């Protein structure tokens, strides 16, 4: 009996969360149909925090404890992960799925834990006045649609009238996100918009590409994810569509998307919310994390497109922690303080350079009203063997996206009885 009591006490002590930890859950997906995208992102996300722990002793002297929870990109499992980890003192969640994000917005807001939905999730969450605990900086889907059109306008001397853009989209809430923005832009700039849906998961697209072959649009813009991307790229090659006129969004421009097609996919372009290429921070990760045997994966993803994005997301979270520590004068911050840090975050070129990631993202400042950043993105291109950066950060047309954000968030506020947090105070 005494032994049993000792075991129970020891077990309870072991289960108690360690004090003075900065807890960051990682809702990853290393299994399931979208694992190829989830693995490098999670590797980058975790490795950056490990770097901070190993090299700097954490953030502000407090170590970061990453809790990985496998969602398999499944919304129910994502919510289970949230519920099972929030009690650990989670500071911020990166749900890495639009479906999970939609489920977590009311829960996290009620629990006072911020969400960072970087380039996915509910686009109108950029309006911090309504979405007090959701942040989607540095860019959102509507920004992406606008940036692509702005880039095409630039290439067509500002005139796209009479041209046709076909939007090939995943037939889901995610895939339909850019439609309204593109419809508004098509009216504004006089181009025709053809909408072509692909059923999930996107393994079969023969009919859609026959339609593209018949209609011969000037450009195909793709809102895809998972297997849809690889199949679409192969089908485009099959029908001999000019690859430089085929443009994916930032979830359709990773290394694995073009790996099967290889050199045949040369010319295919994709948007990215962060810069690619070698950065000093990679050498640091190699030395302190991978060579030390502490990497989240096998280390082979270092520098890959989605690894870099995961690392960028981790860096933004770490910087918000620093800001929160400065604002509140404590190192071991709470989720409420983390929210304050995210809302006061300012990313400058000088700071990014200092962190070993020069120019990885655009400069931006978050505020109470603006949780969305500048919305700028770069255009990248697959040259047959690697992704190369084609442009500097291109700005979206805020005059188009901002009214849509305000309208959608106002509707959400009315439906959910939300009092604006900034304009009412």
């Amino acid at each position, binding site marked *: 009996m005494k032994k049993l009591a000792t075991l129970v006490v020891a077990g309870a002590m072991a289960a108690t969360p360690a004090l003075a930890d900065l807890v960051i859950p990682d809702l990853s997906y290393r*299994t399931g*149909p979208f*694992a190829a995208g989830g693995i490098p992102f999670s590797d980058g996300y975790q490795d950056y925090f490990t770097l901070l722990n190993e090299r700097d002793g954490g953030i502000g002297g407090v170590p970061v404890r990453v809790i990985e929870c496998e969602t398999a990109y499944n919304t129910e499992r994502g919510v289970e992960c949230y519920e099972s980890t929030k009690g650990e003192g989670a500071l911020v969640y990166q749900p890495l799925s639009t479906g999970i994000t939609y489920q977590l917005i009311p829960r996290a807001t009620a629990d006072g834990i911020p969400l960072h939905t970087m380039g996915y999730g509910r686009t109108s969450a950029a309006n911090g006045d309504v979405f007090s605990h959701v942040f989607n900086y540095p860019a959102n889907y509507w920004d992406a649609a606008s940036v692509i059109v702005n880039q095409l306008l630039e290439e067509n001397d500002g005139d796209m009238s009479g041209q046709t853009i076909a939007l090939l989209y995943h037939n889901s809430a995610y895939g339909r996100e850019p439609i309204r923005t593109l419809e508004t832009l098509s009216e504004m700039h006089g181009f025709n918009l053809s909408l072509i849906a692909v059923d999930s998961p996107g393994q*079969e697209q023969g*009919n859609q590409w026959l339609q593209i072959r018949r209609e011969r649009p000037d450009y195909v813009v793709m809102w895809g994810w998972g297997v849809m991307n690889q199949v679409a790229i192969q089908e485009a*090659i099959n029908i001999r569509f000019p690859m430089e006129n085929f443009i994916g969004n930032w979830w359709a421009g990773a290394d*694995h998307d073009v*790996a*099967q097609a290889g050199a045949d996919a040369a010319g295919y372009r994709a948007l990215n919310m962060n810069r690619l290429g070698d950065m000093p921070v990679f050498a640091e990760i190699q030395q302190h994390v991978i060579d030390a045997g502490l990497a989240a994966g*096998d280390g082979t993803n270092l520098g890959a497109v989605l690894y870099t994005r995961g690392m960028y997301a981790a860096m933004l979270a770490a910087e918000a922690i620093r800001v929160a520590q400065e604002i509140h004068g404590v190192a071991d911050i709470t989720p409420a303080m983390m929210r304050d840090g995210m809302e006061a975050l300012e990313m400058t070129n000088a700071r990014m350079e200092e962190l070993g990631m020069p120019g990885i993202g655009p400069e931006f400042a978050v505020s109470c009203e603006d949780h969305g950043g500048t919305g700028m993105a770069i255009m990248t291109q697959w040259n047959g063997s690697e992704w190369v950066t084609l442009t500097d950060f291109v700005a979206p047309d805020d005059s188009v996206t901002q009214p849509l954000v305000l309208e959608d968030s106002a509707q959400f506020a009315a439906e959910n009885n939300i009092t604006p947090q900034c304009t009412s105070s």
Partner: protein
Amino acid sequence: MPDQLLWAMEVTANGLLNGVMYALVALGFVLIFKASGIFNYAQGVMALFAAMTLVGIQDGRVPFAHLINAIFGTDIHYFGWEVPALAAILLTVGVMVVFAWAVQRFIFKHLVGQEPIILFMATIGLAYFLEGTSDLMWGSEIRNLDVGLPQGINPVIDEATFNLFGYGFFIDNLDISAAIVATLLVAGLVAYTQYTKQGRAMRAVADDHQAALSVGIKLNYVWVLVWSLAGLAALVAGIMWGSKSGVQFSLSLIALKALPVLMLGGFTSIPGAIVGGLIIGVGEALFEFSIGPLIGGATENWFAYVLALVFLIFRPQGLFGEKIIERV
């Protein structure tokens, strides 16, 4: 000829070839159901596992490398050799035969005489087990598959149709390859079941288990044989589908395309799987072409099921299925 008609002809031709791809998946289901009455939920995952194994062998990957490295602190991923495509295919067939034996030895041998729903549930468990094993063995990243199959527009058909109609039809070389392979596979299966001793034993078991047992046919042996053939069909389907998208988890979902084909063609008929596949392929392609644009597109998945359900109303056993006769 009007453009609409030409396009409809092109869509029909592509639909027929898509149907062959569906039939390839359905074949594996039919083989097992016909011989053992088991609806094998794991058939799609078998396609994924077979294709992953093929690529793993081709690339000289060490199976279970992550597990080995995690346990022993090693850092091995490759053997350092590459295996030619044909040899890798043969080795993969060997792996699928071992898999068939294991399934029979460790699962279905213990479930003889159980209700069909129990057997079905066992295959659901098998699907999840195999999915996890595949991940552990080869990882869950996308693997490039190249067994030398040609892809892209067929220039001969393009030119011939252009000369005939003034519009060149798009037909994918990969789909033509799939049609040839499917024809060879079906011809081989038919010849095997009609003209070999093992094939006749399979047919005997399919007709009546008890009677087959009474004349000395070993049920276990026949079922291992059938699961091996289903493994071969899964490998072929995995190669054809994986050549386009790379080998990845979503290959396991292609089984969903086989269900309407089976409902339509019948669960017990190899020709039914082929004809069912062709009808579904053409039906969904023409529907997407003609009605799809009016209702937002992406109709292929649900329309295949609607088409199968309509057939079910008139022929519950499917086009070629055995008629259900219940004596009172």
